[in-house]
């Protein structure tokens, strides 16, 4: 291994850690409303609020590519059944933080958690 090889690897590690820190910072902000957005082909299929922890629903997502079953439970989202052969979306487990997402490439489905950010100014008094 040569000097240039080490340099390339260091550069990639630094870049990856930088990106990770950036994502961490952008997802740990405080949100006062959390909801999951299900998108198929880039269009919104359904939105579900995740605020109610006791809410439980199984949502079948029927697309022209195939069917996925989504479970909303304890304020978290998880894909519990998929017709695709690789089942990568099921391996990803549950997600519950804004910015996290589950992607199903064969069915072109993205489940993303979003939040409404707290305003910078909480109250204005005169």
């Amino acid at each position, binding site marked *: *291994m040569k000097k*240039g090889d080490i340099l390339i690897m260091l550069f*990639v590690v630094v870049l*990856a850690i930088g*990106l990770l820190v950036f*994502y961490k910072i952008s997802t740990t902000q405080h949100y006062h409303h959390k909801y999951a957005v299900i998108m198929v082909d880039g269009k919104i299929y359904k939105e579900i609020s995740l605020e109610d922890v006791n809410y439980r629903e199984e949502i079948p997502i029927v697309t022209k590519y195939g069917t996925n079953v989504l479970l909303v439970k304890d304020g978290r989202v998880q894909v519990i059944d998929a017709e695709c052969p690789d089942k990568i979306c099921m391996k990803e487990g549950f997600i519950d933080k804004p910015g996290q997402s589950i*992607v199903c490439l064969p069915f072109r*489905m993205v489940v993303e958690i979003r939040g409404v950010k707290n305003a910078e100014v909480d109250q204005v008094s005169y």
Partner: protein
Amino acid sequence: MSRTHRMVFLAILVANSLILYIIEGMLPVPFIAPGAKLGLANIITVISLYLFGFFDTFIVLFVRILLATFFASSPSTFFYSIGGGVLSLFAMYFAKSIGKSNISEVGVSVVGAVFHNIGQMLVASLIVQNINIMVYLPVLMIAGIGTGVFVGLTAKFVLKHWGKLKNLNLH
């Protein structure tokens, strides 16, 4: 090397990379992030890049991906493979050209692995029309260093022994 020799060798490289690709599909890989895999077929791409240069490697890569789509996977994977493969080849050629003697096969292969991930992620985000899936990129980049070093070392060993083939009067 005559034109026939060259063609036969390119065909052997395509066959080798195709076999590696199919074997890779049979190996169980721990789930790190979607799209993370070993990239064994990249061993042949690196070897070919060092032996035959950019254009012949492009042909080897393209034919391999085309045939792999027929043999091993569903048609939709073609676009991910071609996006990742072509971007990775350009990046490796670039790294090899500017690095010259400072970068060995290992560095070139790491660059290839990382850019393969970037290319695939770009194609995937185009297909689902959502740029946010790029959050997987950092983890894939780190995984790419591991597989890239492994692939690079393998290619290095093969290239070291390539000289012995001179006795077969191929050059």
